[in-house]
């Protein structure tokens, strides 16, 4: 319908009450659900991992109808994602939020599927994030922290081994599928 990165916004994005935190419990539950879905969809399509409450986030305002979310509303919707394990507060003051449109465990499975498909056995962290092999997949541009946690989960399961490279930020991984 409108705006950025050819993401198609649902019609209710132009519904003014969508941007006002609804006080009635039942109505709010539905509103929160719609916000959770939209945030996850949007972040996934835009490969966004961090939402900062204090910076502009395209979803949180609709200039066409001149409506935007209040700080409280943003916090409520993100907190709802956090409570479902689809997001995590990065800082104690709840100003930055890590969005997990795939859960860590799902990321692990996704990586395993990718490895099985491509036959890639040894690679570096940086190659996963920006290499040619992952181009065009969900892994391209993955948040480093998210990737490391997914790999560590695989390591615990004995499916991968993380090893240090020559420099501190050059780590490698060996998959044993």
């Amino acid at each position, binding site marked *: 319908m409108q705006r950025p990165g050819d993401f198609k916004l*649902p019609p209710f994005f132009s*519904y*003014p*009450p969508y941007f006002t935190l*609804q*006080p*009635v419990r039942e*109505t709010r539950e539905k509103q929160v659900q*719609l916000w959770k*879905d939209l945030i996850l969809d949007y972040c996934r399509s835009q490969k966004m991992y961090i939402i900062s409450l204090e910076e502009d986030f395209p979803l949180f305002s609709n200039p066409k109808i001149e409506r935007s979310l209040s700080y409280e509303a943003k916090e409520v919707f993100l907190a709802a994602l956090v409570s479902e394990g689809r997001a995590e507060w990065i800082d104690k003051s709840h100003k930055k939020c890590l969005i997990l449109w795939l859960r860590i465990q799902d990321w692990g499975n996704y990586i395993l599927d990718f490895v099985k498909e491509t036959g890639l056995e040894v690679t570096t962290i940086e190659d996963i994030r920006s290499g040619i092999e992952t181009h065009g997949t969900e892994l391209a541009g993955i948040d480093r922290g998210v990737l490391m946690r997914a790999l560590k989960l695989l390591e615990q399961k004995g499916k991968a081994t993380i090893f240090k490279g020559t420099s501190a930020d050059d780590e490698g991984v060996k998959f044993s599928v």
Partner: protein
Amino acid sequence: MSVAAADWLPSATVTASGRPVLSAGEIERHLLPLADLEPEENPRLAPLRGCLLALTSHRLIFLHEPSLSARALPLASIVHPYPPHRKNSHNPLRSLFSSSSSSSSHHPRIRLQISLPPSRSEVVAVVVTCKADVDVFYGRLVEAIRARAWEVAAAAVPAGGGASVAEGAPPREDLAIRMPVVGVSGILRKEQETWESAGQNLQDAFQDLNALMSKAKEMMELAEKMRQKLLTNQSNSGDEEMGSKQDMQDLLLSVGIVSPVTKETAGALYHQQLSRQLADFVRVPVERAGGMMALVDVYCLFNRARGTELISPEDLLQACSLWDKFDVPVMLRKFDSGVKVIQTKTHSDDEVFARISSLAQKPDALKKGISPTDAAFTLGIAPALAKEHLLNAENKGLLCRDVSPDGFRFYINLFNEIDPQNIYLTKTHGVYHTWISVATAAH
């Protein structure tokens, strides 16, 4: 025990909330919460028990509250009221030991010599079974008998005029008991009259007060005459005059409550009786206002009708809160916001919700939402009340709010219409669909 049994007395009309219906010019003088009426000499006459006793300028009304029925003893039939006494006053110890259920002998009694038609003389006793100042009651009774208000009223009100204001039009019941003309009781009454003249000096002191009251009466009669005139002229008047006449008539109709319940007359029964009178009074204006009225509006209306006998907001609130205990057609309602209203019991929110819902689904409202002012205009009520209705509808999930720099508005609730499984899916029918077509047309 039942009031119906005492058919030797004419029955009296009672309002839906249990207040006696007064006839034209009749004014309440005093109330006793609990009293009996016992015939002292004639065992064939059934006694009245456990009644609220209302003394008016015309009658003694025995109101049996549980059954909402009443019998009245016209003051005109009282030949002589004897001062209050206790049957066993010479022996207070005996009354202390006698069980209260056996008889009401230790209660103060006011014996009345009355005459029943055709010319039968009886002695009955008003037994005051509650804690009340009997002497004050007796004083008021004697005063009322002496004032002979019923004679004035009968002369002043033309036949068929049948008009009492604001308390509903009561049927002017036939007086089953008429003034005696001859016989022993006639002689007794003559004596009574000479005795009365001795108290003339005392009455002179009240002259000013009475003059004021009779002036007020004249005003009431004038208002009534004007109303009658307006009614008869209505048929042959032009359309443009109709409006002003209607206004005038409404004004005259609302001149007031002839006999407002006051602390002085009702005493301990003040709030209870006030509550009943209020219930009778508000029903019509509340129905006219669409079934609901803000408490402040009722306060103003009620006090205007009472004229000089103003009540305080606390009295009003207390009167309203007593409605739970009576079977009255109105109720007090408190909205979540704290706004208090009076509504008829038949008033249903569903009807209001239906109207709000259809208002919110008009194309313009779909696009821009509705404000309390819009709703007030459509529903024909005050904006403060309209806002309560909107908030109520929001609570029910019919509406949801939009708070923006433009103000506080309400939209029809679309959240229920959207499929959470597929947020991009739009059905080809329903409110959501209608809204989308209206909203996309706007941008």
